[in-house]
């Protein structure tokens, strides 16, 4: 079982894990994901690969504790093992060379950008990263991102760091001619409302934009079809055809609606988890 060799808290509800998974580290490409399970009877959840190191065999993931499984993962520490971890899954995005490539990351989406930006830097691309969060304390991996991009633009809703406003407002400034220059290609990773807003912003200026979708999944190999999304009027499976799709072609209404399918059940699972914890504590 993959062992957690390093764990670092990034925010009160987000942690970074370096996991000993040499097979995955050996074949991973930027933009791919893993599926993990933390306990018997637990869900299988997809998590984007933040980084990998072929030599040490370590895979880095960043997980926000929002549901039963991610919270349980959050309780694990260094030396603990993750029950199941399979990958790398999905296809790496095909990002065109040349021009100014802008990665936009919202919330823990910034983590998913790290690996991609590292790869683009290795390719010699000119890049900018815009990351955003509600406030300064919720920004993640800013230092790491700064090292792998030409320009790191930070946005906070409350102005506690960097630009005061949304990532899309900063992106719009660039489209309008502001520094660090017009975006020729945009990679968007983050919560659905953010990706939707980035799509809208880029659509107005005809800027190509790819979005990393993270619908519900079970197997991650194309077997269940639960992760289906409509792209350009066609049904695609995010697990094997994605997770990156042309943002301008994605049916976001449908994706948002499908993402909410199990909201009630997720709450129930979380309640049960809390009840079990209280019982344990008592």
């Amino acid at each position, binding site marked *: 079982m993959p062992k957690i060799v390093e764990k670092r808290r990034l925010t009160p509800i987000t942690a970074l894990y370096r996991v000993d998974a040499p097979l995955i580290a050996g*074949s991973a490409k930027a933009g791919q994901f893993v599926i993990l399970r933390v306990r018997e009877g637990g869900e299988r959840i997809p998590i984007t690969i933040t980084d990998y190191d072929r030599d040490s065999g370590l895979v880095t993931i960043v997980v926000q504790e929002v549901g039963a499984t991610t919270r349980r993962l959050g309780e694990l520490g260094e030396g603990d093992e993750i029950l199941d971890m*399979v*990958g790398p*899954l999905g296809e790496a995005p095909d990002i065109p060379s040349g021009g100014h490539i802008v990665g936009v990351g919202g919330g823990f989406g910034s983590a998913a950008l790290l690996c991609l930006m590292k790869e683009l830097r290795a390719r010699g691309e000119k890049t900018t990263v815009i990351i955003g969060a509600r406030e300064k304390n919720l920004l993640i991996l800013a230092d790491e991102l700064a090292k792998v991009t030409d320009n790191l633009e930070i946005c906070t809703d409350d102005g506690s760091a960097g630009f005061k406003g949304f990532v899309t407002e900063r992106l719009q400034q660039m489209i309008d001619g502001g520094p660090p220059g017009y975006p020729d290609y945009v990679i968007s990773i983050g919560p659905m409302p953010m990706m939707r807003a980035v799509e809208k912003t880029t659509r107005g200026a005809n800027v190509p934009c790819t979005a990393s979708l993270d619908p519900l999944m*079970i197997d991650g190999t194309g077997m269940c079809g639960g992760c289906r999304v409509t792209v350009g009027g066609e049904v695609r499976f995010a697990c094997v055809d994605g997770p990156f799709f042309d943002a301008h072609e994605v049916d976001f209404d449908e994706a948002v609606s499908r993402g909410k399918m199990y909201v009630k059940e997720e709450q129930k699972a979380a309640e*049960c988890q809390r009840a079990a914890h209280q019982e344990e504590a008592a």
Partner: protein
Amino acid sequence: MPVKRVEKTPMPVRDPHMRAHDFEEVNEGYCFAHAMFEAERCLRCQDPVCVDGCPVRVPIADFMHAVAANDMEKACRILREANPLAAICGRVCPQEAQCEKNCHMTKRFGPVAIGHLERYVSDWEMAQPMSDEVQEPWREEKIAIVGSGPSGLVCAGELARMGYHVTVYEALHAPGGVLRYGIPEFRLPNSILDWELDQLKRLGVEFVNNVVIGKTITMDDLFGKYGYSAIFIGTGAGLPKFMGIPGESLNGVYSANEFLTRINLMQAFDFPNAETPLKVGKRVAVIGSGNTAMDAVRSALRLGAEKAMVVYRRSEKEMTARIEEYEHAIEEGVEMHWLTNPVEVLGEDGWVTGLKCVKMKLGEPDESGRARPIPIEGSEFVFPVDNVVLSIGTRPNPLLVKATPGLKTHSWGGLLVDERQVETSVKRVYAGGDAVTGAATVILAAGAGKKAAEAIHHDIQSEAA
């Protein structure tokens, strides 16, 4: 020995009203007396035609003799030799279309219950004490099996018996393939599959879960870096088909694969103890008429659906499910709507509210030889439903092919194999089961796994010589 010219001994089953609410096995299995009596019904034909109906040619007559003589050990040996997945096939084979169809008793009295006896003998075997001893491979060559469904398991077992090092790679967190994620507990308990897996482990077969060949490890690496001498692909036909009608992406619409995987692999029936949820409303429509459709619709009942129905565009005659599954479904209260074709899934606020269908009539035979269903104009109507489950077939998964240059397929996705029906377009890469034939049965996959094992052994040995 007196031959009993009486009707087939029925399989004892649990009460439909009870069983329709839980996932315990429906069939209870023969008792000793049933088995003795039923084995006596075999006519001991000079030319046992039943064997011709069996894809793996179990010597059924010899097997019957052994059961009738109460020599269960011998019966087991005969059975296992021909069919390494006997405990599973005794439960899920469509015997009425295979061995039992050919039985000379079929016309007048009903066939000898070959399937039920296969299960009886396997259950006897499972009750015997087993040693923990693990067999050591005695040959040098290593073989990799991709996928742990029926074809892979049989291929693995056969090769291990021949002395090879065998590793089975599985993408999911538990082995078994469709036997694990597809067939529900009430038809094939996981404990049976686990017992079969234990047998393979005792033969020295190694199982590696959570590895997707083509993603985690490439085929090239299996040969080069890992040093396997041959690879068997048994990746099945797991890619679900959708109908392409409006509304298929509404919440509450599932592929049968997803519906059953949530239940069987992820144990959604135990939610919230098991954390994977499944939304089953009061009214569930399952589209299709195969075993998977019956599994899905009967699972829906067990998860609390008050109205569970099968919707199929052809008639009862063209239904592809095993007769037993069909009868059990009816007993449990499943509604069958034949000659009914869904044209649209209706929804409100993103959720399914109904299934719009059109009535069909049968026309001239189509390319499949079955009467072509033709829509009756103006016959559209709506079933108010909360869930729609699509069980209209599956295709081979293209993941491995996409990742492996040189691996050739038919246009519909099935792997191309040589004239021996085992080797793919890549040397030393063999394939069998649904990945080659498209969705078929457990026993056909088992037969293909066995055949591939023989070919792998032959090819490796002839090269060494």
